């Protein structure tokens, strides 16, 4: 126990202090009530997001402000990495991989649009992150690749070259980067799971708990979206789910898959795991967009419930680091949602329903 206290005393106190400084619900309400995007952005003056005010004032470009938020989030991970033990550093590094994978997925989508569909990408490519996160990924070389072979060449020296290379035939045949994205996601979760396995027992238990929930959230999301939107067969859909760490498998998965209604699927998958689920599902609307928003809300609440449990438990574990990352991601996501909603002039009520 003494070991875990000295391992986490500093970082636990530091992160709890940071959590206490996160944007308060009252501040979020003020942001939502702001009459315009410009005024909402000005409210951020004096908060940890003040850099956004500068960028938006100079450029008037919300997407660039979002890119700044992403850079800020990455720098938080790097900062925390310096304050934790070696094995926890490996987990944080694996978590950083998420940003690299997401950025690569965005780049590949643009490459596909430009190289294979001959579409214009200049306007959107400026919003890609061009700093190296873990591997030396040359975004501009990828975007300028004329053929799939050039694409693989531009990824040489990174762990992504073999993954992408394996998916090229399917991509050419089906004219989609869908499987490429799934393969990258699988790579990320495998790496993360391998890093977690090196943790001491108490940390391992907490990390398993939280990542299992996160993986389940991903899987539930995929299960509902892929079944309803793409009409995949059970076998095909099972291939796209993340297997490591997931509790959604076997009879539970097939029972959920056999349901027609998204609400029914959710209640089967989360039965007994999320308090207040029935009340939330009672608000399910008939239109698909409304259903997806509610599903996202339910899944986010499921993850937040785990975070709250971890924060209320024994403090000297990796849980505090993971809880902080999840809360910070949630905070940034909330901010992005509000600012975009203000940009599109959505009403207060609609913004609140999306948070």
């Amino acid at each position, binding site marked *: 126990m*003494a070991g875990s206290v000295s391992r986490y005393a500093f970082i636990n106190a530091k992160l709890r202090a940071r959590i206490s400084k996160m944007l308060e619900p009252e501040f979020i309400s003020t942001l939502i009530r702001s009459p315009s995007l410009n005024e909402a952005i000005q409210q951020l003056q004096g908060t940890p997001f003040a850099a956004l005010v500068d960028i938006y004032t100079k450029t008037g470009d919300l997407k660039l402000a979002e890119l700044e938020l992403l850079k800020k989030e990455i720098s938080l991970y790097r900062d925390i990495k310096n304050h934790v033990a070696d094995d926890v550093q490996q987990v944080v590094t694996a978590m950083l991989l998420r940003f690299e994978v997401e950025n690569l997925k965005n780049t590949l989508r643009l490459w596909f649009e430009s190289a294979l569909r001959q579409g214009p990408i200049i306007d959107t490519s400026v919003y890609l992150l061009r700093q190296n996160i873990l591997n030396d990924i040359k975004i501009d070389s990828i975007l300028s690749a004329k053929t799939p072979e050039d694409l693989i060449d531009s990824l040489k020296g990174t762990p992504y070259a073999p993954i992408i290379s394996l998916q090229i035939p399917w991509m050419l045949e089906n004219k989609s980067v869908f499987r490429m994205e799934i393969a990258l996601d699988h790579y990320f979760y495998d790496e993360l799971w391998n890093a977690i396995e090196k943790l001491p027992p108490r940390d391992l238990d907490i990390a398993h708990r939280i990542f299992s929930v996160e993986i389940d959230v991903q899987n539930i999301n995929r299960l509902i979206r892929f079944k309803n939107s793409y009409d995949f067969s059970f076998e095909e859909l099972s291939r796209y789910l993340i297997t490591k760490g997931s509790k959604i498998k076997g009879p539970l998965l097939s029972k959920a898959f056999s349901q027609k209604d998204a609400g029914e699927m959710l209640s089967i998958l989360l039965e007994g795991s999320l308090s207040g689920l029935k009340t939330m599902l009672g608000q399910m609307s008939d239109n698909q967009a409304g259903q997806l928003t509610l599903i996202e809300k339910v899944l986010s609440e499921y993850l937040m419930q785990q975070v709250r449990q971890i924060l209320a438990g024994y403090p000297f574990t990796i849980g505090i680091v993971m809880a902080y990352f999840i809360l910070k991601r949630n905070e940034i996501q909330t901010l992005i949602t509000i600012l975009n909603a203000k940009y599109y002039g959505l009403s207060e009520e609609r913004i609140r329903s999306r948070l």
Partner: protein
Amino acid sequence: MSHPKEKFKKRVGLSLIITVLVLLFIGVINGPALLAQTHETTEKAALGTNEAEVAKFALMAAAAAFGLGAIGAGLAIGNVGAAAMGAIGEKPEIAGQALIFIALAEGLVVFGFITALMILGNIPQ
């Protein structure tokens, strides 16, 4: 540029070596005088065997009470201090509250010190 952890380790190692050297230096300066005094005292003293035994164990107990108290306080302050620094770094306004917790840990060595004094006060003369 070397890693901050390595730098920290080097600095701790260096302070340890300097401390040992200073202690050795003090020992060399004061050692002969103390030794002469001990010889003198042994010649003069005519304590009974029982009293000498009690005194021996009492001195050991006093040393243990103070020493272990100090080690305990050191360990506690190490952890509490690290946590306090982490929190103060993010929220300087809680420095006052954080110092209270450091003082609580510091209290351990005071208990040890008082216990040692009480033991020393009861040694038969």
